[in-house]
């Protein structure tokens, strides 16, 4: 069909009215795309009908547009608040993340606290272990000494205090005559003054011959205030004198604290 035939058919008027069948609509739209004059004709028909309808209309109230605007804006607001509601999971997510971070920080702090408290405890443990091992060593030493002193090879003697120097003082001697080993318990002696040390002597009576056994010091210590001495000639008596630090060649008799005979 030519443009003129389409225009004369009356289909364009029905097209604008919306009264055409779908097949005819497709036909008209093809013609619009093909012929500019068909499009122009449709625009003129539409303008005529638009004017006709306008003449029929009573004056439109200005409120109508306001109402429409309010209505579509309310709808928009509803949609906006919907969007806001949809954001709730995100907000929840952030809150959870913040809580989670807070939790992690708290746990880190807890771990730090625990670590430092653990370090303190470990140190304390080490100290206690050392003390324990020291005490165990001491105890073992004491037990060993006690075992020795209890054996039948040892005889016990008490060295009484010298009346002029230290009447309250005393010392005990545990002596193995066969092997010439002596343990001396000095618990009964007063603590030596600064710069002084006790020295143990083995004595022969006729003539009076003192032999130094050694000093009451850490080198001879065998237990708590018990000292062990070996390698000395058969004694008839034991004496303990207070001597300057390092000991003396001969006993200072003016400072003789205890003296006792070894009988039988």
């Amino acid at each position, binding site marked *: 069909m030519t443009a003129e035939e389409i225009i*004369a058919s009356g289909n364009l*008027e029905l097209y604008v009215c919306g009264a055409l069948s779908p097949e005819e609509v497709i036909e008209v*739209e093809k013609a619009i795309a093909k012929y500019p004059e068909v499009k122009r004709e449709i625009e003129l028909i539409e303008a*005529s*009908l638009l004017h006709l309808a*306008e003449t029929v209309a*009573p004056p439109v109230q200005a409120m109508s547009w306001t109402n*429409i605007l309010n209505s579509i804006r309310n709808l928009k607001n509803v949609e906006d608040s919907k969007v806001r509601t949809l954001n709730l999971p995100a907000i929840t997510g952030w809150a959870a993340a913040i809580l989670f971070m807070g939790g992690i920080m708290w746990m880190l702090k807890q771990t730090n606290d625990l670590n430092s408290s653990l370090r303190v405890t470990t140190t304390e443990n080490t100290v206690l272990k050392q003390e324990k091992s020291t005490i165990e060593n001491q105890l073992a030493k004491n037990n060993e000494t006690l075992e020795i002193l209890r054996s039948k090879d040892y005889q016990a003697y008490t060295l009484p205090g010298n009346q002029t120097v230290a009447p309250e003082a005393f010392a005990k001697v545990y002596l193995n005559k066969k092997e010439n080993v002596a343990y001396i318990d000095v618990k009964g002696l007063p603590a030596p003054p600064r710069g002084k040390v006790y020295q143990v002597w083995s004595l022969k009576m006729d003539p009076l011959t003192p032999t130094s056994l050694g000093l009451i010091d850490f080198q001879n210590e065998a237990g708590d205030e018990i000292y062990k001495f070996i390698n000395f000639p058969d004694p008839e008596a034991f004496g303990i004198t207070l001597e300057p630090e390092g000991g003396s060649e001969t006993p200072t008799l003016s400072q003789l604290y205890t003296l006792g005979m070894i009988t039988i």
Partner: protein
Amino acid sequence: MEQPNDLILEMQNGNEKAFSRLYTMYSEAIYGIIYSIVLDENTAEEILQDVFIKVWNNASSYSVNKGRFFTWLLNIARNTAIDETRSKAFKNSKKNLSTTNFVDILSSSDSLNTKTNAIGLKKFVDALKPACIKIIDLLYFKGFTQAEASKTLEIPLGTLKTRNRTCINDLRVMVLG
């Protein structure tokens, strides 16, 4: 009048200003169509608002490549108005509408539209042949299909088409000069 496709596309993108301009261009004609169906100003106003809210909310269902925007508006307006006339509330409150058409409205109206040259047009419409009035009323104002109109008016489809063209052509000479 060339169709304002730019405005239509902007409205479809949610531009209220474009929608406002389209409302200015088309609302009076659409109001005229609605009024010719319900014949009550308050009801017609409400329907007009409904129609344009529908247009805004369903803007994306129209395509500038398919059919005239004015025809799309016409269909929404006529359907909404006809739905209203079928409602119980409307039937209870209204008189018999079957005999009223757009010419009756023009003849009986005292407050004619000021935007158009209504007085001149009224004179012309008054002079329209009764056949033209019936055809334009059914096809344009009442939204009959060509087959329905042909059956109602008892004239062949071909005759209906040519007569409708002649009537609108007369109108066009009067309106557009």
